[in-house]
């Protein structure tokens, strides 16, 4: 249907002109999805808090379980936070001139890949140290919460890669970039909360 006004054949009344949606459909759908994801992670964080409070002798991590690499992961977290900032820069560059968003979008993806890769290295080291999903509730919560975040990060990176490909083909719209960016911002912003909950 065109955006120009039309006339009802029976009533002679004009149809109001179709306007741009207040929020692009993709962004709205992503926001609703993010709302559900926030509740999912809230549930995990709450369950973790309850189990931690019930730990024998208030000892957390439990005796005999390896300690998490707090400092290394802090650096890793910094890479993720910087990727979020770089993606904001990509958005402003896209608004100014589309082709200018290529480098910051690529940098945001690279930083995200570095985060996921380093998390994988950390997991391998922890598994070698004996922390498995079955070794204790501590290990179970660690792999569940950090793993769930990792899956979301990989999904969001796939979205960014899709956006980058469309940007290369000059077919990327601002609504599409906003949609995939919203998911990446969620991945970036939920991580400090998880880090504070699981690692500290």
């Amino acid at each position, binding site marked *: 249907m065109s955006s120009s006004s039309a006339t009802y054949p029976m009533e002679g009344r004009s149809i109001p002109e179709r306007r741009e949606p*207040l929020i692009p459909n993709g962004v709205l759908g992503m926001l609703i999805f993010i*709302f559900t994801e926030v*509740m999912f992670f809230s549930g995990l964080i*709450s369950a973790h*808090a309850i189990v931690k*409070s*019930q730990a024998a002798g*208030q000892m957390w991590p439990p005796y005999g379980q390896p300690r998490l690499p707090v400092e290394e992961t802090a650096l890793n977290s910094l890479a993720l936070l910087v990727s979020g900032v770089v993606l904001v820069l990509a958005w402003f560059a896209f608004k100014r001139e589309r082709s200018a968003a290529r480098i910051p979008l690529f940098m945001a993806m690279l930083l995200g890949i570095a985060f996921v890769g380093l998390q994988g290295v950390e997991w391998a080291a922890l598994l070698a140290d004996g922390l498995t999903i079955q070794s204790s509730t501590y290990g179970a919560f660690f792999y569940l919460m950090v793993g769930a975040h990792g899956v979301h990060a990989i999904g969001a990176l796939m979205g960014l890669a899709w956006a980058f490909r469309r940007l290369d083909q000059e077919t990327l719209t601002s609504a599409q970039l906003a949609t995939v960016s919203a998911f990446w911002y969620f991945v970036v912003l939920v991580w400090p909360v998880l880090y504070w909950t699981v690692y500290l």
Partner: protein
Amino acid sequence: MRPLENSGVGRGVALLGVAALILALFPEGVAACPVCFDSSDENRMAFIATTAFLSLMPLGMVAGAGLWIRKKVKDRGDEPVDPNRPEP
């Protein structure tokens, strides 16, 4: 008419009375509320805090989304018209 104490209703009332008495005398044994009865203060606080957190989080998100949409509507200059507003 049968007297109440000999009827099924009377026995039910009596059973309820006994059950209420047991509940009153031994509340810890039947407590289903983990927030209300726990020996550990930290555990109790964790239940209370997470209950508040999980209750307020969706309300906060919906309220935030509502305010954001309201702001966007205002910025665009097409505030929804009150249907009860009289015609000028």
